[in-house]
C-alpha cells in the first residue's frame, strides 16, 4: 500500500498542497488529473522526495516517513524512498552521455553495485519489455521522443520499485509518439505494476487508471474510480474540466 496522509507543501509563502490524502493499492494505477498548477507534479515529487513536504506522512509499504517543518529527511530514509520509487519525467531526462542500455543500468551499477553482467542482462530484459532491445547501443540523441520516454520507463523500472511515478509522461510527445508510450504504460498496468500518473491525457488516464484523483489548488476535490470521475463526475468543476479537455 502507498499512502499519503495530510501532505502539505509550500514554496515560500505559496501553499501548493493543502493536506493531501491519497491511497494507492499495490498493483493498481491512480491517475492525477486537473488543471496546470493544481499540484499534480508537486504531489508526485513529494512521493520520491524531490520535494520535501512541510507536513504529513508518506507510507511506502512498511516504510513510513513523517515530515515536520524544515527537518531534513534522514539519509537512510531518503535512500529507501528512492529505492522504492521509480520516476518518469515529462521531459525524459535521459543521461545524454550514456547509451539506452547505459541509462537503464546506471542505478543498478552505481547505487545497487550489481555486477555489470547481471545489470546488463536485466537492462536488456527491460529494454525488450518496452520494445527497444534493438536500440540498446543508441544514445538518447539518436532516439525519437517516444523511444526516449520508453527508455526512461525501463530505467525507472530497473531498481524494481514498489511504485512507478509518471509525471506527464506523454505531454512532450505528439499524438502518434504518445500512443506508443500509452501502450507501454497500459501493458505495465496489466502486469500489475503500481503506478501514480499525473496527466492531462484523459485517454491515458482512462486506459491505465483504476482510480482517478482530480486535484485543484492543492486539494483532491474528487476521488473515485476512473469510470466515475471521467464519465460521471459528481462535482461540477471536474465535469467542466473533463469536458474542456476531451473536446
Amino acid at each position, binding site marked *: 500500500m502507498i499512502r499519503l496522509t495530510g501532505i502539505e507543501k509550500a514554496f515560500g509563502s505559496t501553499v501548493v498542497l493543502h493536506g493531501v490524502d491519497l491511497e494507492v493499492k499495490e498493483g493498481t494505477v491512480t491517475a492525477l488529473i486537473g488543471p496546470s498548477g493544481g499540484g499534480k507534479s508537486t504531489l508526485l515529487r513529494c512521493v*520520491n522526495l*524531490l520535494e520535501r513536504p512541510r507536513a504529513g506522512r508518506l507510507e511506502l509499504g512498511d516504510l513510513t516517513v513523517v515530515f515536520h517543518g524544515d527537518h531534513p529527511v534522514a539519509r537512510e530514509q531518503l*535512500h529507501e524512498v*528512492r*529505492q522504492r*520509487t*521509480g*520516476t518518469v*519525467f515529462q*521531459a525524459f*531526462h*535521459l*543521461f*545524454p*552521455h*550514456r*547509451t539506452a542500455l547505459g541509462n537503464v543500468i*546506471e*542505478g543498478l551499477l*552505481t*547505487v*545497487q553495485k550489481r555486477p555489470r553482467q547481471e545489470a546488463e542482462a536485466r537492462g536488456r530484459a527491460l529494454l525488450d519489455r518496452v520494445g527497444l532491445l534493438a536500440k540498446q547501443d543508441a*544514445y*538518447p*540523441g*539518436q532516439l525519437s521522443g517516444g523511444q526516449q520516454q520508453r527508455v526512461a520507463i525501463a*530505467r*525507472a523500472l*530497473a*531498481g524494481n520499485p514498489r511504485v512507478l511515478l509518471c509525471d506527464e509522461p506523454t505531454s512532450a510527445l505528439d499524438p502518434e509518439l504518445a500512443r506508443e508510450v500509452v501502450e507501454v504504460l497500459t501493458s505495465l498496468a496489466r502486469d500489475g505494476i503500481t503506478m501514480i500518473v499525473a496527466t492531462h491525457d484523459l485517454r491515458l488516464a482512462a486506459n491505465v487508471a483504476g482510480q482517478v484523483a482530480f486535484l485543484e489548488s492543492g486539494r483532491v476535490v474528487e476521488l473515485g474510480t476512473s469510470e466515475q470521475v471521467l464519465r460521471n463526475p459528481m462535482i461540477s468543476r471536474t465535469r467542466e474540466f473533463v469536458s474542456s479537455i476531451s473536446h
Partner: protein
Amino acid sequence: MPHWLEILRDAFLPLLAAGAAFTIPLALLSFVIGLVLGLLTALGRAFGPAPFSLLARFYVWIIRGTPLLVQLFLIFYGLPAVGIVIDAFPAALIGFSLNMGAYTSEIIRAAIASVPQGQWEASFSVGMTWSQALRRTILPQAARVATPPLANSFISLVKDTSLAAAITVTEMFQTAQRIAAANYEPLILYSEAAVLYLAFCSVLSALQNRLETRLGRHLSPLEVVR
C-alpha cells in the same frame, strides 16, 4: 651552411632541453594542480556553506585582480622577507597553480551550471546520492562544455611560463635570452623560441580536438558545433 642556420641549429638542443626540463613540466603540473584547485573552488562556491563560498570568491577575486608577474615576484622575492624561502621552480609552480585554479574554477562552475537541473533529478530518482550524481552524471557532461575554455587556459599557461624567466627559472625563454646575450642574435633566438612555443601549443590544440570528439561521441551531427 648559412650563418643564421648555424645559430638556429646550435640553439635548438639547449632550447628544447630547457623546454623539456622546465617549460613542459611547469605547465603540465600547474595545469593539473590548478584543475583540482579549480574544481574544489567551483564546488565550494556553488554548493558549499557560506564560509566556503566566501573563501572561494575571495581567492578568485585576489588572483584574477592582480598581475601574474607581480604574484610570482611576491612569492619568490617577497616571501623571504618574512622568512619563507622557496626555490625558483617550486615558487613558479605555486604561482601558476594558484592562477590556473582561479581561472579554471569559473570555467568549471559555468560548465556545471550548464547541465540541466533535470539531470540531477533523474540521478536522484534512480537512487544516486549527491556525490554520485556529480561524478556520474554532471561532471561528464560538464567536461564536454568545459573542454574548449580549459584548453584556452592551458595554452595561455604554456606561454605564460615564460614569465618564470623573471624569477630565475631557466625555462625556454630564459635560455633564449642567455644565448642571445652571448651571440647578439636576438631576432633569430627569439624567433626560434616562439616557434617552439607554437609547436607545443599546436600539440595541445590537436589533443583538445581529440578530447572534444571523444566527449561528444553521443551527440547527433546537428548538435556538434565545430
